[in-house]
């Protein structure tokens, strides 16, 4: 692993809500929300463009083993990159190890909680803008839909109604519906 790289946390297009230990992030571009647990939050906050991966790892409390702590940082960076929360390119990863193998190793070797990033996406964005003015969207009635579809609140935003084809799961299918 190349731990001399300097990760930079993405800040543009995000609304960041700090909490006592965790961080809540809303991505305005992709309409996704993320919750970073304390370890992931600490690592993300440390990605200030001044510190290398090795230096970020050194700052983590809970273990003396620098190599294991660097794995932990990479584990967080791997998820942050995947979720588009890191602004710059990072080339190195786990030297051929899968994420699962790293989790197993790191979990046993450090006393630090693993970094976890939970995500919620809002696939109903298109639905919201196109369906809200439809008959279903304005009345909430099944008669506002064609082709036997039902008028249901979308999972992503229950205030937005759309026409759904899955009759058995009214309200639990994400915004995949087409408008009448």
């Amino acid at each position, binding site marked *: 692993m190349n731990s001399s790289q300097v990760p930079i946390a993405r800040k543009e297009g995000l*609304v960041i*809500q700090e909490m006592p230990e965790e961080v809540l992030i809303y991505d305005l571009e992709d309409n996704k929300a993320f*919750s970073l*647990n304390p370890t992931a939050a600490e690592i993300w906050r440390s990605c200030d463009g001044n510190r290398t991966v090795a230096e970020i790892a050194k700052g983590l409390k809970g273990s003396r083993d620098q190599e294991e702590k660097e794995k932990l940082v990479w584990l967080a960076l791997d998820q942050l990159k995947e979720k588009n929360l890191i602004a710059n390119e990072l080339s190195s990863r786990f030297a051929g190890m899968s994420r699962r193998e790293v989790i197993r190793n790191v979990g046993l070797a450090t006393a630090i909680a693993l970094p976890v990033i939970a995500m*919620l996406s809002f696939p109903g964005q298109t639905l919201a803008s196109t369906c809200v003015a439809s008959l279903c969207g304005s009345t909430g009635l099944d008669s506002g839909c064609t082709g036997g579809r039902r008028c249901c609140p979308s999972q*992503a935003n229950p*205030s937005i109604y759309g026409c759904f084809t899955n009759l058995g799961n009214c309200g639990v299918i994400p915004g995949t519906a087409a408008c009448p």
Partner: protein
Amino acid sequence: MVRNRVAEMAPEHVFIHAGAVTIEGHAIILPGRSFAGKTTLVKALVQRGAVYFSDDFAVIDREGRVIPFPKPLSVRGPGGGRDSADVEAGAIGAAVGRGPAPCALIFLSQYEKAARWGPQILSKGEGLLRLIEHTVPVRTNTRFSLKVLNKLALRAIIAESRRADAGAASIKLINYFNRSVLGLPRD
């Protein structure tokens, strides 16, 4: 539908799709989608002495307090279909909230036939993420919504459990509230 538009556009408040009641001046918020059984659970709670705030939207002010939005309860027929009748809270003997209340418990529950009750506490971050799903203006007024949600959850317990019928769930929920919020001993 008009209420939904108001919820989306209200500049000073955040609307969460949720039932809301108070016990001993502490608010309980019950987030849920439409047809998730919010009204049924709220109705069961107020019939056991909780004060009615809303069966549809928990309205949160900029200080993170829950304010009453006491529309008539939309009570559905025995089949649980889409047809519903509006019932005034007073008609089922409910007291109606008059002022803002701090939130003490945010309880996420999903009805499942024969579900076993087993509340699990969520971290603030995890809980807020789940709450965002039910927050109406989160995409139109994101910064304000997150700020208010953070204040709302600051001193609240956020928990979840599957639940069976509303009658039994309301008793378990009140017991859980009494223990976890008021610190009362188990019944």
